[in-house]
């Protein structure tokens, strides 16, 4: 049975550390992955597939159990990631990729965590980017328009990919 998705939301804030935190969530009627290392890994697999599909291959995701990277037009490394940290329990299944570097990161640091959390009345799916320092965002004290590429481009793009990702997870869980 394909899980039914509802309750989508997206938020973003700048942390005291200066890093960005971006969260996208959706509620699912049923689990989209099982609680196992394969289930946790699949949370990551589906995310990379969602990026590939949303950009129709313009941004390619390359990944293994050793890490991954997003490349623009097959050449430029936009972001590179370390090996996924997989966790699973009765209530939480997650796949966390530490951000290493790339053109879109000021420096190494931060992470992307893809998770399924059990709630009282269903499941929460989430994509959480934490402590990420985006190169395209406005610097502290700089005019806001200097961060337009991030605010109007990268950030909504990321949210849109996340939404597509949740749809993909639900659809594949139903097959």
């Amino acid at each position, binding site marked *: 049975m394909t899980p039914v998705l509802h309750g989508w939301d997206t938020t973003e804030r700048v942390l005291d550390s200066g890093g960005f935190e971006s969260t996208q969530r959706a509620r699912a009627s049923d689990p989209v992955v099982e609680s196992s290392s394969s289930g946790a890994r699949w949370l990551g697999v589906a995310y990379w597939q969602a990026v590939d599909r949303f950009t129709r291959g313009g941004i390619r995701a390359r990944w293994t*159990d050793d890490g991954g990277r997003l490349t623009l037009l097959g050449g430029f490394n936009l972001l590179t990631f370390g090996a996924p940290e997989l966790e699973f329990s009765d209530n939480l299944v997650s796949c966390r990729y530490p951000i290493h570097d790339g053109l879109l990161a000021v420096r190494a640091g931060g992470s992307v965590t893809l998770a399924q959390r059990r709630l009282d009345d269903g499941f929460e799916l989430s994509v959480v980017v934490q402590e990420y320092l985006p190169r395209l965002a406005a610097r502290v004290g700089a005019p806001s328009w200097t961060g337009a590429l991030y605010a109007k481009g990268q950030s909504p793009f990321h949210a849109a990919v996340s939404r597509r990702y949740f749809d993909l997870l639900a659809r594949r869980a139903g097959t």
Partner: protein
Amino acid sequence: MKIAVFGATGVVGSSLLPLLAPEHEVVAVSRSAHAAESGIRWVAGDASSPNDVARAIEGAEVVYYLVHSLGSRDFERQDRAAAENVAAASEDADVRQIVYLGGLGDDDAGASAHLRSRRETGERLAAGTTPVTTLRAAMIVGKGSAAFETIVALVDRLPAMITPSWVSTPTQPIALDDVGRYLAGVCGNHAVLGESFDVGGPEVMTYRQMIERIATLRGRRPLIVEVPVLTPRLSSLWLHLVTPVGASVARPLIEGLKNPTIAREERLRTLLPFELTSFDDAARQAFGQKKKAST
């Protein structure tokens, strides 16, 4: 229990028979005649022939369906027809279980014709009343496995490779022995009737990493240059030239390589626990080398 195995001369069927024969009455079905073996009765038959199928499965409680028509021009149609035959005959013969080996990644919306055909075959088998147990695997690492032998041939024959982007696609290859153990383990098991299981090996790797690992085992260091544009047709013609795999087999295989083939779940590991074979050990076995001693 009496068991019929379709595709008994194939790579997977051949490794399954010795696992079943000590405990069961095994009828091995193949298109060509085959000499009798201890504990195994060979029957010449074609899965696309209703009469052959009915004769082969008479009295069987479990039917293994390990058949594919890859290499034929219309393999999708042939596979559908054969699966329908076996499903209908199994229903008539009151078979208790059909065991089918499908492909990981076959449920992807962008699946290749080969993977799509694997999925459709499973659906046709399940259309009858006989419960089907489906195991879905990625590349099988073993002697005779077409995909594995293709990569080995590339490594052995080419000092440098210009490869398409599919070499960066991740996959979860599984040892031939482990597939055999899983297949034998589900035989007659009530807990798995009507269920589908992903069966993956212990490691996720890209095809490029696989080429590099095989090269290391073979004592080679090929130069690999990845190019963004190399069509499946060109790739398959190239493989036809430099490997023992014909273009008609290579092309559907290559088209399938663009899809990640990763296990989504591991329920069967809980039901049938055993230590999975590492990729290197599986490859060594395929080469006839000894396994590396565990430390």
